[in-house]
């Protein structure tokens, strides 16, 4: 409805402006000269002033934007390398604002200052090696510095030292959900290929690989604070991109290959929630949600739940119709909590055994089609499984 009103207003505005130009045209009836559609001194004067006004608009709009929306931008990075990224970003922003301020100022100021007049004569100024040298060399030097800093940061972020003590986690993408696989005790991920996908083994892990035996598959990502996490990404169908904005981390997931990204989280979820900027942001979001809820309830809908902050893993590469809802919660725990959480999880081997055991009594019944229901089944029969596992382990 609002948009309809906007459109009606616009149409009326357009009509009004059209009528205005008609008036302009009529005032020029007397002068039947053919250059009536070429800018006159009067036009130059008016347009020159508008140029100046537009410069003011750009400056004011920029400042307004910074004040009003500056707070929306991602704040404190939650990873170690994030500080490096944000530092480079801030330096670049200062540079951009300085250059933007000066060049736009010159552009529109010159436009205003040199607006045409019939008595005016332009200066024939065709070239100047000195000036051109200045504005080739200054950008070159500035960019050289930015490039060097950028490459230093890039190399630090992207190359993982093989000997480093890291936790290996696989991020597995498929339309339209994320799954994580932990390497288990041996900290080596078992081999995998989509051709091995079967039943609860939804990631196609090669169960004949000794390294795969202790792998753990979960649908919520937990990582410990202060440890380097080495993510290995895979995709089973189309391109996806694992984007964790708060950690300044992103890498595409490509079917047919394993990509990687590593970072060290520096705030637990609980700590990050308590940061002053985050408290303010969440309060603001909840205020907006409360307002929206009132609106929804009035329409007979249900109100929205209040929001608490969680780190997120989003898909950031168009991957299909539900691309807009492909996300996974990321939890940064203290190292102790992380250990505890992980120890409560069953390994993939156990999951497979459990599924097999669950299927046996219900012969003829088709295996559950989605793995989340499969997981539920697993949980339900976990006790009976323990006995089976013990038996197998003895063998």
């Amino acid at each position: 409805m609002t948009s309809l009103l906007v459109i009606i207003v616009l149409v009326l505005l357009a009509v009004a402006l059209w009528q205005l130009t008609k008036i302009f045209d009529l005032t020029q009836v007397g002068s039947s000269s053919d250059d009536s559609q070429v800018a006159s001194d009067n036009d130059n004067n008016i347009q020159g002033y508008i140029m100046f006004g537009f410069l003011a608009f750009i400056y004011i709009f920029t400042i307004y934007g910074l004040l009003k929306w500056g707070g929306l931008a991602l704040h404190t990075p939650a990873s170690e390398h994030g500080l490096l990224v944000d530092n480079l970003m801030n330096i670049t922003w200062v540079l951009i604002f300085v250059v933007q301020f000066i060049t736009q100022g010159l552009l529109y100021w010159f436009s205003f200052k040199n607006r045409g007049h019939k008595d005016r004569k332009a200066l024939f100024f065709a070239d100047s090696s000195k000036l051109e040298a200045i504005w080739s060399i200054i950008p070159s030097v500035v960019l050289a510095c930015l490039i060097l800093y950028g490459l230093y940061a890039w190399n630090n972020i992207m190359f993982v030292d093989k000997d480093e003590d890291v936790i290996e986690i696989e991020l597995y993408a498929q339309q339209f959900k994320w799954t994580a696989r932990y390497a288990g005790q041996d900290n080596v991920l078992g081999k995998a290929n989509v051709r091995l996908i079967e039943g609860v083994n939804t990631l196609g892990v090669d169960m004949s690989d000794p390294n795969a035996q202790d792998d753990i598959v979960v649908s919520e990502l937990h990582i410990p604070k202060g440890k380097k996490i080495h993510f290995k990404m895979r995709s089973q169908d189309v391109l996806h991109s694992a984007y964790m904005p708060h950690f300044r981390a992103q890498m595409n997931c490509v079917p047919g290959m394993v990509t990687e990204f590593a970072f060290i989280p520096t705030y637990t979820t609980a700590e990050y929630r308590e940061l002053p900027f985050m408290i303010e942001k969440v309060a603001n979001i909840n205020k907006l949600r409360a307002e929206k809820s009132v609106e929804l309830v009035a329409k007979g809908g249900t109100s929205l739940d209040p929001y608490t902050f969680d780190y997120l893993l989003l898909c950031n590469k168009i991957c299909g119709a539900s691309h807009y809802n492909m996300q996974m919660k990321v939890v940064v725990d203290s190292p102790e909590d992380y250990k505890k959480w992980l120890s409560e999880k069953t390994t993939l081997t156990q999951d497979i055994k459990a599924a097999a055991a669950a299927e046996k009594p219900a012969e003829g019944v088709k295996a559950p089609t989605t793995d989340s229901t499969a997981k539920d089944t697993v949980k339900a029969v976990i006790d009976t499984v323990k006995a089976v596992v013990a038996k197998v382990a003895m063998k």
Partner: protein
Amino acid sequence: MSAEAHDHGHEHDHEHEHHHKDTFITKYIFSIDHKMIAKQYLITGIIMGIIGIVMSLLFRMQLAWPEESFKIFNVLLGDKFAPDGVMANDIYLALVTIHGTIMVFFVLTAGLSGTFSNLLIPLQIGARDMASGFMNMISYWLFFLSAVIMLSSLFVEAGPASAGWTIYPPLSALPQAIPGSGTGMTLWLVSMAIFIASSLMGSLNYIVTVINLRTKGMSMTRLPLTIWTFFVTAIIGVISFPVLLSAALLLIFDRSFGTSFFLSDIYIAGEVLHYQGGSPVLFEHLFWFLGHPEVYIVILPAMGLVSEIMATNSRKPIFGYRAMIMSVLAIAFLSTIVWGHHMFISGMNPFLGSVFTFTTLLIAIPSAVKAFNWITTLWKGNLQFNPAMLFSIGMVSTFITGGLTGIILGDSTLDINVHDTYFVIAHFHLVMGISALYGMFAGIYHWFPKMYGRMLNKNLGYIHFWVTAVCAYGVFFPMHFIGLAGLPRRYYTNTNFPLFDDLQNVNVLITTFALVGGAFQLVFLYNFFSSIFYGKKAVQNPWKSTTLEWTTPVEHIHGNWPGEIPHVYRWPYDYSNPNHDVDFVPQNVPMKEGEEVLHH
């Protein structure tokens, strides 16, 4: 002997006469006259532009008021894609995809380059027509055909291509992954293949014409900057478009004949597909080997038009003519070795990322030179604010604003976190979308009298420019912030992320500016189409310009000049030359005795 010669001459005359008697079909439809072909490109480009912009308004409305019902959706998208007026998520992606494709290729490549290269190359270098008029005609009609096929894909059962304008496989290869990757994608690929053939024919024609058909005295360093940019653009096109064609062909093989160039290890819809050994990253390389030069194919002609218009309307020579040529060449060269900056996080070796960061940031240097040279051109000028001049100044402004954020995106480290967010959209829409559109508008306002022999209404032009200028900043400036907040692009709605709830107000503001800006393009359309018929009659050289196209008669004739082609004696920027009393000296005016060349 002499009688025979006379006879020959007569026969020739007769043939000539015959040539002039065009039927409606040979004059307006299958014309081989470059001026008519230019107009055909322009009109087709404008129609495609209207479609592309309307699409963007539709999905902007969805983003501002997600999943709300609008009658207009139902009317335009039909019951299947907008039941009860609520836009479906797959048509959202299709709109985004086709908007990108249409604007980049059909409006800003063919509509811009096709129009002005065709119109200005023969006229400004002093040639009677293109090197091959016939090939030129074929080029236009292939473009038209590709446009028709692209639009027809909007009407197929499962919907048009919807894998993004970059059509990355496997999404674009597998109909199981997204419905648009069925017939819709096939039509997209066929359309693009034809488009590329059209573009190559056009480009070859431009190159040959510029090299061979320049009039006497028109040395390469006396060419207007428009011609330089068209020439270089054509060269980049010839180098890079075939690579996209190969990518499209390989993708067609993968889709239809079971090859595995781009696909490997895929499990979808409950089954393993046979593909093995291919790599989607290979497609990304092939695509961006065209895709990146493509943005320069779009922006360079706009730069050329703006340079020319700025000099004319400043009544001053363009500052640093040779530096402008050098920077165009530098940009063209660098543009072919920077494609990897679209792929920093694609999974390619990070070392390559370092190399591409280096080459990418280098482009800032020639770009800075151009921007500063334009600004200096305005300095101490006698600026005539015709609408074309306003759009030119606007183009420099948006090129700077959008270009500066390129320093962030071109830096692999910073790209990690803003890649594929709204920050990218803000950046490229300003630096190549809006800038190139401004260049195109500037060109239309400036050369309309040459095309139609009539003038556009300047007051409507002023309104068109200022509203567009405010709205362009209003749309894309706030977009930087929601990108910095981490909002991914190509999301049908953000309501599944409470984290982004505080961005909703910004989205409403952006859409409002977009709707206003879009609506005011009607002012331009009215001005354009009514002026073709009812505009004030133009004089031969309304802007008092120095270049050769203004020495031709207002009424179009085959062969451009009624008599001999003018000779050229000077560079194209003798404005306010202190050796002369008038403030412009056309290129075909001989040097005065003892007149010195005052420029490098």
